[in-house]
């Protein structure tokens, strides 16, 4: 009983938001052309799903997201770990990282459009560049923060520095690394959609701007809804993964 009540409570704010979305245009509080009622957005969602537009564009977007993120994760964890472990790497890379970190990566959109065109590569490159540094920084800080006696113990058990980096330091830094990955995941959606607004011929971001330009507002809101759902689902899935990976924390 309590579980059911808890479930209702958790979803109640969302239900209220949907109800307000439905009521506001119907009661004339906002113009229905600016905000079509929720039910019409849902109907448009259904229509888009049935036509296949939603899935084709979502698949295209998700592929870009996955490719960009995968590159950022591999590059960010690898470089961050090496920077934290080897002083010469740190000395060379730290000034670059520190100066590039605060730069808004969306400023690169025109540059990447020029270099890579309208295809997948420009979006993948943007997501990679945007997500690289958050992953790198969290890995760097995580590895730097590993309790030194863990490292010393592993070394005195006969392991080489590189073996200790991969076998001990990175797993010990995993809570920090996963926190950075979660930030990167959220950021990747931002970069994906905004780059697809500006430089794409398909994808969910492109679909939103295309539908908006064409005045198909219920369908536009439906696509926005789809992006929100995908982002939410990705975050939930990531939290589940985190919980499994950190089960040892007990």
């Amino acid at each position, binding site marked *: 009983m309590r579980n059911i009540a808890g479930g209702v409570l958790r979803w109640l704010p969302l239900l209220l938001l949907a109800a307000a979305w439905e009521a506001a245009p119907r009661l004339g509080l906002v113009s229905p052309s600016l905000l079509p009622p929720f039910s019409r957005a849902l109907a448009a969602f259904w229509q888009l799903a049935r036509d296949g537009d939603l899935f084709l564009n979502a698949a295209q977007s998700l592929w870009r997201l996955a490719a960009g993120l995968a590159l950022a994760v591999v590059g960010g964890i690898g470089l961050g770990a090496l920077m934290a472990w080897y002083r010469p790497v740190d000395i060379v890379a730290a000034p670059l990282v520190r100066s590039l970190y605060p730069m808004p990566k969306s400023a690169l959109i025109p540059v990447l459009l020029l270099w890579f065109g309208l295809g997948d590569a420009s979006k993948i490159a943007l997501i990679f560049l945007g997500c690289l540094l958050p992953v790198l920084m969290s890995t760097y800080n995580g590895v730097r923060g590993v*309790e*030194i*006696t*863990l490292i*010393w*113990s*592993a*070394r*005195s*058990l*006969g*392991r080489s520095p590189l*073996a200790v980096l991969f*076998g*001990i330091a990175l*797993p*010990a830094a*995993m809570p920090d690394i996963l926190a950075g990955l979660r930030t990167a995941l959220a950021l990747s959606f931002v970069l994906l959609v905004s780059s697809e607004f500006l430089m794409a011929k398909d994808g969910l971001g492109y679909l939103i701007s295309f539908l908006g330009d064409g005045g198909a507002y219920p369908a536009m809101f439906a696509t926005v809804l789809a992006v929100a759902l995908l982002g939410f689902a990705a975050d939930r899935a990531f939290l589940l993964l985190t919980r499994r990976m*950190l089960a*040892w*924390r*007990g």
Partner: protein
Amino acid sequence: MSGAAQIVFEGVGHSYVPPRGRRVQALLDISLQIAHGEFMALLGPSGCGKSTLLYLLGGFVRLTQGAILVDGRPVSGPGPDRGVVFQSFALFPWKTVRQNIRYGLERLGLPRAEQEERAQHFIDMVHLTGFENSYPSQLSGGMRQRVAIARTLAVRPAILLMDEPFGALDAQTREIMHEELLAIMRAQRMTTLFVTHDVREAVYLADRVAVMSARPGRIKEVVPIALGERTGPEVMKSPAFADYVEQLWNLVKTEAAQAVAGSR
């Protein structure tokens, strides 16, 4: 304990520059020899650099002044010949008890079955049978330190370095751990350097106690302890034990007072 010295400190010093401030001389001109199979306690007030001396012998901190020889060879970095047990246990928290103990065995090139067998032997030795698949977070402090001891002993180091290993445990657990350590030592004698600030612990466990002065840390005196074979905590009630404790306490007391005054 007689026999050739296995560990030799020769004029060892250590200084460092804190993030803001002037160079601090932590250790000064330390010369000390530890014989094969000898249990040496390093006793001193907090901040006297006794842990630093252990880290230098462990090869964790780079030696800049003097020399440290193990079996005649200078120390250059950590190695499996010198096993370490830390006050903070330093277990790998994402590994189970068995995985922690196997970590050091995996690189020895033993067949898998033999690794398992040896891991189990040491798990049994520290009375953790039945907890093989527990994570460190599920164990008490005493149990965690037993895992750390088993992990270190499993690679069969010739030398055991213990940095206030029982300092984080409650008094009762600490006494139990003393008995277990003595039992392990009876079965498998290792040259041991045991850092502590607990006078009674030093007297109870050690063959000799090296007392360090307040910063800069120096060896003030080395006191041999002749209580015979430790057969149990009854020894602590003997007059000889009380005499040793008083003698060492007097040596440490003045240093502790200085250390407190110095930190003001």
